[in-house]
């Protein structure tokens, strides 16, 4: 039971990383991206291939995973983000499918549907962090979450974050204020992709194997749900959202009802969350963050 809760918390952490990235794109810039799963997959496979086929150390594969995911984010973002945001949704939806298609078919590199097994465990200063001893791995993952949270939160509170919100509110007015909207949108998208790549990298060394079947569209939907449920534009909220969605996701196993509740049940529930939240509580559980100066986490007399 404790092990199971730890498992949920580890997945919460991995998904919280993706949700933080999605929040920057969707919560701040107001763009619908549907492919955190694609970047997640790229990060996972980068780590798997580099460490298994080429014998790299995990810590060396990590930046490669992030940069590769960011690079693909740039490739999709540049043509679509010059235009209205709508096309990003379609382009990213297609991209996710193509990534999975390629992972399934490029046997030489990815070993096709069988995936890649026996990924070496992480070691820190010669100490191995085995995913079987869950406490160690839990701490590792959450160190990443905390760092990502602090970095992104600070970014959001800087003038850059304000520019992103201005673009969401009114792109024409923002560009008339000297903000290069396209450049900011593309960079926000790239950063969101990079952190999903890092999440993928962690996932690879947690499961110790990668298979294309893991990176379905459902992953992207779950991440989107985390942001929508917790509250768009609020990094604390999306971490909460990540926990709630993971909890729901594992609830049947947790209470031993996985035989009774069909697997589609939770997926229908995720779909419902999106529709219901949009209609009744578009701001999410916690709502948009009360902004204050960076460096001061709590400020009296914020906006009401």
């Amino acid at each position, binding site marked *: 039971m404790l092990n199971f809760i730890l498992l949920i918390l580890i997945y919460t952490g991995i998904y919280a990383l993706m949700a933080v990235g999605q929040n920057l794109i969707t919560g701040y810039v107001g763009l619908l991206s549907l492919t955190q799963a694609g970047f997640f997959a790229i990060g996972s496979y980068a780590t798997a291939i580099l460490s298994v086929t080429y014998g790299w150390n995990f810590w060396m594969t990590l930046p490669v995973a992030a940069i590769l995911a960011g690079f693909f984010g740039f490739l999709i973002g540049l043509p679509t983000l010059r235009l209205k945001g709508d096309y990003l949704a379609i382009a990213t939806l297609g991209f996710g499918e193509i990534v999975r298609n390629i992972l399934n078919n490029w046997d030489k590199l990815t070993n096709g549907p069988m995936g890649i097994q026996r990924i070496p465990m992480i070691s820190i200063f010669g100490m191995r962090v085995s995913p079987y001893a869950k406490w160690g791995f839990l701490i590792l993952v959450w160190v990443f979450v905390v760092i990502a949270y602090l970095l992104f939160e*600070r*970014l959001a*509170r*800087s*003038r*850059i974050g*304000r*520019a992103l*919100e*201005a673009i969401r*509110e*009114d792109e*024409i*007015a*923002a*560009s*008339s*204020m*000297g*903000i*290069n*909207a396209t450049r900011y949108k593309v960079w926000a998208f790239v950063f969101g992709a990079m952190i999903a790549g890092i999440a993928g990298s962690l996932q690879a060394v947690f499961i110790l194997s990668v298979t294309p079947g893991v990176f379905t569209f459902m992953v992207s939907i779950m991440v989107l749900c985390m942001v929508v449920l917790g509250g768009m534009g609020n990094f604390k909220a999306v971490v909460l959202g990540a926990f709630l969605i993971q909890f729901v996701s594992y609830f049947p196993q947790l209470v031993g009802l996985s035989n009774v509740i069909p697997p589609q049940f939770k997926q229908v529930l995720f779909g419902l969350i999106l529709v219901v939240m949009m209609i009744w509580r578009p701001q999410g559980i916690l709502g*948009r963050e009360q*902004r204050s*100066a*960076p*460096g*001061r986490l709590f400020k009296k*007399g*914020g*906006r*009401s």
Partner: protein
Amino acid sequence: MILLETTKLTRAYGGVIAVSQVDFQVREGLITGLIGPNGAGKTTLFNNMTGLDTPTSGKVHFNGTDITRHHAHTICRMGIARTFQNIRLFKELSVLENVMVGLHFTTGKSPTKGRVAAVVRSYLKAKQEYDLMHEQAMRWLEFFKLDGFADELAKNLPYGHQRELEIARALATEPKILFLDEPAAGMNPLETDSLMKTIRRIRDLGITVVLIEHDMKLVMNICDTITVLNYGQNIAQGTPAEIRHNPKVIEAYLGKEEA
């Protein structure tokens, strides 16, 4: 000195010619009025000078530089700011934050280093930068007596204040020229009077003002020079007194007298 100038600027949408061969000059330090009946092409001309639209032909020069095909953000950075006919505030941001967005590149930019360095610096020194921007934004809000609303969401401001906030936001970009698109639209006479005073105060800051306006009392009162557009063409320019007695202008507004 001519600060901004269009030469033979034409903008056609398919077969419809919104602005045709317009030569328009803005002299430094003056308040220039741009008037004309509805659909005369005033806003189109504004959009073509501020990078939100691209002319079909013709040129726009600012301070001697050709800015015809520049993006809106580069034009703003060169020193041209504007407001919009149908107020375009960042509705879900606070009044203060709206002005802080206007400060985005004036306070945020580092004078010597490159773009990337500036971004990194503003990230690392976010706190100092915030305090500096906060202080400057408050100064602009005080200029408009909006400081009491600083933490209010922009969308909750009364209409007249929203117009003022939009001007404050534009001024925060430290422009040489400020374009105002119908600043008095929807205002009552009292508010219009106070707007006139504000526009003069802005001029006194050394900022050149160009405004589109239908309120003739305001235009005749504060403009040093007026240009009249009709059917996309520049039909007259001169002092308020000259414009008032120009037969072409009277015809454009009142229609041709029956012979």
